[in-house]
């Protein structure tokens, strides 16, 4: 976001006693002089909030907010049109509703005015998000929204893009607390959660399934689906060619199976499959990844940090790990060349990761990788440092001669292979110093 101070900037509002709200497309009969605020009717005026009275104005709201550069602006929506990021929703432009909308907006404005200027003027998405959460009852709550592919929106985040990413960082820093809300399946092709879930044939993945009873012929012990016995109106055993005349005497029906009309395969239990409504791709239940969504709440630390005007102490676990690894290896290399000390860097690669992803799905691959990482950490010394990059696991072993590591490497790989349920094709190799920069990601 680029900050340009306009007349609608938060600084301009802070000094004003009576707030002014931009009223979009209002019928004149709603307005009287006894409101605790003033109304303006064009976005060139100064305003601290927006009230959309009917649908004509709804389309302009996003553009007006962006033009104003004030992403803390509260918005009330009294129209039939959907404004998912509005702070107040009250359908029907009545005098009472307008009063309620004004009250709601004034509460938020009051809260915004109490923020330090450094926060109100901050153009960092995380600071804006934290300020919005603070001024909107301290909660960043997710809401189901079928109009977006991910099916979840955070109305309190306003127009901030992908607010969950910023919220996660704020949660890592302890400024927000994170609470599980729901888990969604996501299309591996396009990431959408608009998926049709259906029962499918385990062989051809058709959803054209039907239930069929099995018949057990007592005399010859043949047991198969009814269609194999059916000859017109008669039931004839396909094994011994005898007619089955009497239920309970010649035969019974001890089970029910699911059969596929497309390929004729008999399933004991159908599979769950997904079809993405957005990109029309089809996926097995196991191959579909899941995504967890959270509700975020302001913490006391977050509130103190915000009111003091400092939204800092951002943490990024993966970046920290990478930085630490770089630092330690760099230092190790310097000591190695200065004092002729040995060190070893080991790479554990997973040659069959793609194969596992295709066969078993993203979830199984992720679980197996996590398990492998735990095994590596468990097998190594306290002094060794492990880094999980996207592609490999790197292990920095200070004071270790490469010749000493062959047996532990083999043991480590054997352990991974024998413990994991899927074969990731784990292989260990020594990393040359020149190769290291290529293996380390630039930035997570």
């Amino acid at each position, binding site marked *: 976001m680029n900050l340009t101070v306009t007349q609608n900037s938060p600084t301009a509002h802070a000094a004003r006693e009576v707030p002014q709200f931009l009223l979009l497309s209002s019928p004149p009969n709603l307005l009287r002089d006894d409101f605790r605020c003033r109304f303006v009717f064009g976005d060139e005026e100064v305003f601290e909030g927006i009230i959309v009275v009917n649908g004509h104005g709804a389309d302009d709201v996003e553009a007006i907010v962006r033009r104003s550069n004030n992403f803390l602006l509260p918005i009330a929506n009294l129209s039939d049109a959907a404004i998912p990021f509005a702070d107040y929703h009250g359908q029907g432009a009545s005098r009472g509703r307008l009063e309620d909308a004004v009250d709601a907006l004034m509460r938020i404005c009051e809260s915004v005015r109490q923020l330090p200027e450094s926060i109100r003027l901050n153009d960092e998405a995380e600071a804006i998000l934290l300020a919005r959460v603070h001024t909107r009852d301290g909660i960043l709550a997710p809401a189901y929204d079928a109009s977006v592919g991910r099916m979840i929106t955070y109305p309190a985040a306003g127009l901030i893009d992908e607010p969950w990413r910023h919220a996660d960082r704020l949660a890592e820093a302890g400024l927000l607390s994170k609470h599980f809300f729901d888990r969604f399946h996501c299309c591996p092709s396009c990431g959408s959660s608009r998926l049709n879930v259906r029962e499918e044939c385990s062989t051809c993945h058709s959803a054209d399934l039907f239930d069929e009873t*099995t018949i*057990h*012929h*007592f*005399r*010859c*012990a*043949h*047991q*198969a*689906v009814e269609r194999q016995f059916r000859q017109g109106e008669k039931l004839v055993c396909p*094994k*011994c060619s005898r007619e089955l005349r009497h239920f*309970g*005497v*010649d035969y*019974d029906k*001890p*089970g029910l*199976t699911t059969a596929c009309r497309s390929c004729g395969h*008999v*399933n*004991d*239990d159908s599979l769950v499959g997904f079809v993405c409504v957005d990109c029309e791709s089809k996926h097995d239940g*196991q191959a579909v990844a899941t995504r967890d969504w959270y509700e975020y709440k302001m913490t006391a630390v977050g509130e103190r940090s915000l009111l003091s005007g400092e939204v800092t102490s951002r943490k990024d676990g993966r970046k920290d790990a990478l930085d630490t690894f770089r630092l330690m290896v760099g230092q190790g290399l310097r000591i190695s060349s200065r004092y002729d000390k040995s060190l070893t860097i080991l790479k554990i690669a997973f040659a069959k990761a793609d194969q596992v992803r295709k066969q*078993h799905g993203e979830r199984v691959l992720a679980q197996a990788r996590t398990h492998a990482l735990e095994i590596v950490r468990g097998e190594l010394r306290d002094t060794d440092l492990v880094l999980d990059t996207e592609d490999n696991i790197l292990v920095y072993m200070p004071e270790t001669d490469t010749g000493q590591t062959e047996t532990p490497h083999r043991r480590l790989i054997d352990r991974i292979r024998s413990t994991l*349920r899927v074969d990731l094709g784990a292989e260990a190799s020594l990393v040359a110093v020149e190769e290291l920069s290529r293996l380390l990601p630039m930035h997570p």
Partner: protein
Amino acid sequence: MSVFDPTYFLSNAEPSTLIGMLWFLLILDIPRYTFACISVVVYEVFRRRRKHTVVGEPLVSIVIVGHNERPTIRRCIASLREQSYRNIEIICVDDGSNDGMAEELSKLRAEGLVDGALTTNPRCGKPSACNLAFGRARGDLIVNADVDCTFDRDAIANIIAPLADPKVGAVSGNIGVRNAEESLISGLQSVEYLISISLGKRALDFFNIVTCASGAFSAFRRQALESVGGLDVGPGEDLDLTLRLRKAGWEVRFAEDAWCLTNVPATIPGFVTQRLRWERDAIRLRLRKHRDVINPTNRAFYFSEFLHNCEFLFTNIIVTFAFPFYLIWLFFQFGSGAWTILVLVMMGYVLLDFIAAGCALAAGYRPGAWRIWPYVIPYGAFNAFVMRGIRIYAYLQEWIFRTSYTDRYIPKRVLERAPWY
């Protein structure tokens, strides 16, 4: 020294006298044991030459059927999922259980450990439940195993190896006893399994007369199974299927290195019930249902089939029924001196059993197998008196009363409609 002391007896008796007294051992038992041991030695020499390897990695469907086996099903499946042979699908049938086995199967299915989970209710019996699963199986090779079995990691790879030969329709796996040390009776059965399966079936395989692809662990070529219509109504459906496969021209082999472990009955009533059923089935199937193959005037007569039936007639019927006559003859001839001769016979059995068990272990030693050695000592007497006694009783039951037709192993409503032979 008394004349009733066996050592004195052995050192002073004339060879002709000894032969006259110990004829049962010398004529009926020693040749059997010698034949088996020599066969195994020869087998081991020639085995590597005729070892087959399955080309590629064809899909193997493993069919597991259980009734009220909730406590054991997970262990069995876990053992199968540890196999070195990876291209497998596991299809389980819950045959009318009421102990929650169906729910356990659903869990296993959800965990991806089982590829197919079928349920029949009411109980249909193992043969028809297997037939249902055979129809659902996708592999050209089908392994049928008992739910209380667990398997060596290379068991599936080894049991399907002989099926590389297109003439082979079925392969029987090797079976060991998991609970050998649970009781004396289970320890004795572990010796019996070692001698009769690990050693005995190798000998039969050498002559290509394996006649029972055990229901506990066997592999089949789908084409062979379909050619005979799968399993017929039991009990004894595994023996019956093997005999029908042989009649249809398929070879049946034994994979001595395909090991599964099973629990045997650890109590006398459990043991007796199981053996009575097995022995009755042998009579019903071999001498009634499939009597055509031992009748030289019948069109279905084959010399190879006649050969394995001769082996059955000799080892199971003649030896079994001759033993009580031998005992009567001993006491009639020698009075109380018969006890000394019996002790000598038992000593002979101990020696033969040690040799046979040693041969079996030398041919395929399993870690921990030495634990069965103490049970080898009483095994001879157990086999001679207990097992032969059970066998005689079962044969008479079946010959006279056809008791196998009322066996509770198969549901009553099914047995009532099954054909009589």
